[in-house]
């Protein structure tokens, strides 16, 4: 009962806004190009998610047919870039971050370079990325990898450097070698930081994928939004935006669930 009440309370403002928005559109106070009605957006969204042709034995099997909707296909393309780009960026950042956190020497060697490259937004790489990697997926994945790389490496370094000295003393007292300490004490102790870095990195990857699709590819949610712009299909633009929001939310919920499991020992756990 209390939950229902809290839900209604949270839904109140969005619903009121939607109503006002619908009203503005229906009364013709604003043109459908500037602000299409939410009902029109919803209809467009549903239409784009649904398969284009009706099911028959020609376009069987069922599962690929079900995913043949335009928005679904675009989401898959975008997600594919996000996942690959993030995997590349994070899998380079994690080991380097661990090394830089654990060794003062490697830190001194690498930190100036990292600090110079870090403030350059991935978007600034776009022209060079096209020159280096051509068109299609590779430049896009490169940009996403850059976007994911820095949050992960910064947090990993911080995590390793902030391990409470008392755990190291306890481990040494129990006879642990340097390697064991790294693997069984420093690594798990740094996990909360690393997990936070991954989450931020995933957020950046999501921003960058949309931007990167505005330039060099011909599918994906970013591309679809730009395409719709050329035809002034505002309802389609907003439908694409909402899809991005939903996917982002989905990823964050999934990452949070993984984090909560990995960090179930942690005191300040988000419930």
């Amino acid at each position, binding site marked *: 009962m209390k939950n229902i009440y809290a839900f209604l309370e949270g839904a109140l403002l969005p619903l009121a806004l939607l109503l006002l928005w619908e009203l503005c559109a229906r009364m013709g106070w604003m043109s459908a190009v500037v602000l299409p009605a939410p009902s029109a957006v919803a209809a467009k969204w549903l239409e784009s998610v649904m398969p284009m042709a009706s099911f028959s034995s020609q376009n069987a099997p069922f599962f690929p047919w079900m995913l043949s909707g335009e928005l679904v296909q675009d989401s898959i393309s975008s997600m594919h870039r996000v996942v690959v780009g993030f995997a590349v960026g994070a899998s380079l950042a994690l080991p380097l971050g661990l090394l830089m956190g654990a060794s003062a020497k490697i830190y001194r060697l690498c930190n100036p370079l990292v600090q110079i490259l870090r403030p350059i937004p991935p978007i600034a790489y776009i022209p060079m990325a096209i020159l280096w990697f051509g068109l299609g997926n590779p430049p896009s994945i490169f940009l996403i990898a850059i976007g994911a790389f820095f949050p992960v490496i910064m947090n990993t370094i911080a995590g390793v450097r902030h391990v409470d000295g008392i755990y190291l003393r*306890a481990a040494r*007292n*129990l*006879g642990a070698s340097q390697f064991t300490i790294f693997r069984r004490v420093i690594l798990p102790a740094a996990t909360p930081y690393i997990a936070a870095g991954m989450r931020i990195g995933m957020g950046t990857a999501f921003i960058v994928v949309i931007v990167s699709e505005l330039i060099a590819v011909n599918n994906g949610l970013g591309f679809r939004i730009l395409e719709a712009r050329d035809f002034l299909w505002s309802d389609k633009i907003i439908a694409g935006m909402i899809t991005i929001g939903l996917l982002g939310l989905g990823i964050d919920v999934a990452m949070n669930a993984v984090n909560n499991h990995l960090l179930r*020992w942690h005191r300040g756990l988000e419930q």
Partner: protein
Amino acid sequence: MTTTTTNRVSIRGVCKTFASASGEVIALKDINLGIEPGEFVCLLGPSGCGKSTLLNAIAGFSSPTSGMITVGDKPFKGPGPDRGMVFQEYALFPWMTVAQNIAFGLEIKGDSKTAIRERVDVLLETLHLKDFRDRFPKDLSGGMRQRVAIARVIALDSPILLMDEPFGALDALTRRTLQDELLRIWTELKKTIVFVTHSIEESIYLADRIVVMTYRPGTVKCDKRVTLPRPRDPSSADFNALKRELGQLVMEEQQRHVTDEMKLATAD
């Protein structure tokens, strides 16, 4: 492992100085102590008397500026499982369950899985932790955490236990329970225990021998053998006579500590 002649702790002429902002601090000055196997020794004194510094030196976390500490006539390098340490802050690994924490040292030693499991079961039993086996430290009370920390070091069967104000953060009742448990374990396993505390009553309740230390530089002010029969009754006349006597010694040093702090405060 716990043969009587091999594990004597011998501290000879140990000095320790630290560099600090206001110049060099002499934490320990010419400490000479021999601790016999199976002896329960308390290091007693106010904050800043160097008792924890001395314990850390025995543990091997820091080496003396001069002088020598040997265990069984052998010098050691760095910390090791032959001198198990129990910290006031418990220092349990929060990402490991109770059982995993206790098993950690055994895994490093390279014991077989079944041997570790058996040993952990026995220790969980001994320290009344059976129902907490798969809990994480964050879900345990302070007293329970310290039980796990004790189990973790006695798992390795180290002949010497070093305890740095282990019960300092516990409430009075939990503290007494754990003191009794510790005495039971000590009697059973015949370990040498070096126990740092600033509680006079705690030291009399536990120790065979109380070493009172002076405030800066840390030296041995008094080395007192406690002969009261066990279990000791903190309300008995003998207990309280000893408490008064040691109290005077400790308070002299506490006074010097306070004066020193005042001086530092006015100097700022």
